[in-house]
């Protein structure tokens, strides 16, 4: 979706306010809880990471721009978990009593599983998928697509020419997986010149690298 989350290249966002390495990891108890909830529900297997990201980017644009990152996580979690049927908005608001959970889900994460689960993480590679249309050294172009759903092809790379510099193998395709279909295919690292992306406002000799899937690309002719 062409949302405000896709901000690469946008103007007028202001200077960067630098926080120091010594600053606390979390700013307040509520940030700790929302971070932890988001990770603890992994074992429920109720939503994928791509569904999660898509839920966050569907926050109302005005709110997204004025919210901190963990506020965006909170909004996304309420959205995706209610859409998945773990609870209703009315239950969350306390308007109706607690209802039984009827959707299938995995086990609740126990405290002793935390390190093992987090050390393991997810697995995004697949043995099989669509065959590769591109190889290292190929000149490619970001497709001019504007899907209403999730996409990891940033707007600033659409219609732009780059060079495939790595093939990271067959992986779950985020754009499809955010809508329930893994559609595995090759993931590449594509190198774009700064001047290709930004014209005279770019810098000759500088490069921007973007990880893009096969379906994001077409051959540059």
């Amino acid at each position, binding site marked *: 979706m062409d949302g405000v989350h896709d901000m690469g290249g946008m103007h007028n966002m202001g200077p960067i306010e630098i926080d120091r390495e010594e600053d606390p990891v979390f700013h307040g108890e509520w940030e700790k809880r929302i971070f932890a909830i988001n990770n603890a529900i992994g074992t429920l297997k109720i939503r994928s990471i791509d569904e999660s990201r898509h839920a966050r980017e569907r926050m109302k644009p005005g709110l997204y721009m004025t919210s901190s990152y963990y506020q965006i996580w909170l909004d996304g*979690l309420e959205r995706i978990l209610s859409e998945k049927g773990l609870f209703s908005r009315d239950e969350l608001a306390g308007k109706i009593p607690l209802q039984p959970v009827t959707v299938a889900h995995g086990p609740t994460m126990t405290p002793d599983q935390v390190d093992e689960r987090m050390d393991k993480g997810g697995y995004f590679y697949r043995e099989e998928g669509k065959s590769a249309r591109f190889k290292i050294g190929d000149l490619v172009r970001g497709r001019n697509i504007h899907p209403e759903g999730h996409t990891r092809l940033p707007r600033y790379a659409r219609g732009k020419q780059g060079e495939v510099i790595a093939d990271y193998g067959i992986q779950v395709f985020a754009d499809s997986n955010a809508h329930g279909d893994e559609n595995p295919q090759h993931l590449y690292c594509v190198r774009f010149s700064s001047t290709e992306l930004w014209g005279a406002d770019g810098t000759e000799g500088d490069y921007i690298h973007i990880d893009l899937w096969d379906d994001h690309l077409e051959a540059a002719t």
Partner: protein
Amino acid sequence: MAHDHDHNDPPSDTVLRVKALESLLVDKGLVDPKTLDALVDRYETRIGPQNGKAVVAKAWSDPDYRKRLLADGTSAIAEMGYSGAGGETIIALENTDKIHNVVVCTLCSCYPWPVLGLPPVWYKSAPYRSRVVREPRKVLEEFGTQIPADVEVRVWDSTAETRYLVIPKRPAGSEGMSEAELMDLVSRDSMIGVCEAKSPEQGEAA
């Protein structure tokens, strides 16, 4: 992405919404509050930039390790005991006299958790995400980093599950320092690529 929100008291409705969500999930048996405590503890105390600093210091000290790290970052980092969520695949990018790497996630805030922990507020902010792909040299200047015109700037936008870790240049004057001493010269920001590693004099001052 107003920066202020992260340092000022959050609106009370945010706090109430988080409490409501947690209670609901706990009451339904879907989340264990002790699991939440364990997750917070892990990322507050154990998974942070100190992990990446150990990786960089080892790469500076051990040429064989450096080679393994650049060939297969994920495996070389796993050797040190760091792996998993938010960094299932990690690629190490080496800064040289001719190349300076800097990492961003323009679409959300992807960041190599196993080696750097959770991202700083600025990394997640609209100014950084919007600007560093378009004007990386200006952004780096705001961090006090001047990149000479003959050095190529390489920006890496983390749009998939691949994560990138910058290996800063080993500072002059650090010859003969131990891995433990070298770790003090590596900052979190130097592993994102917005700063250089500290000189031995700066390391001592810090």
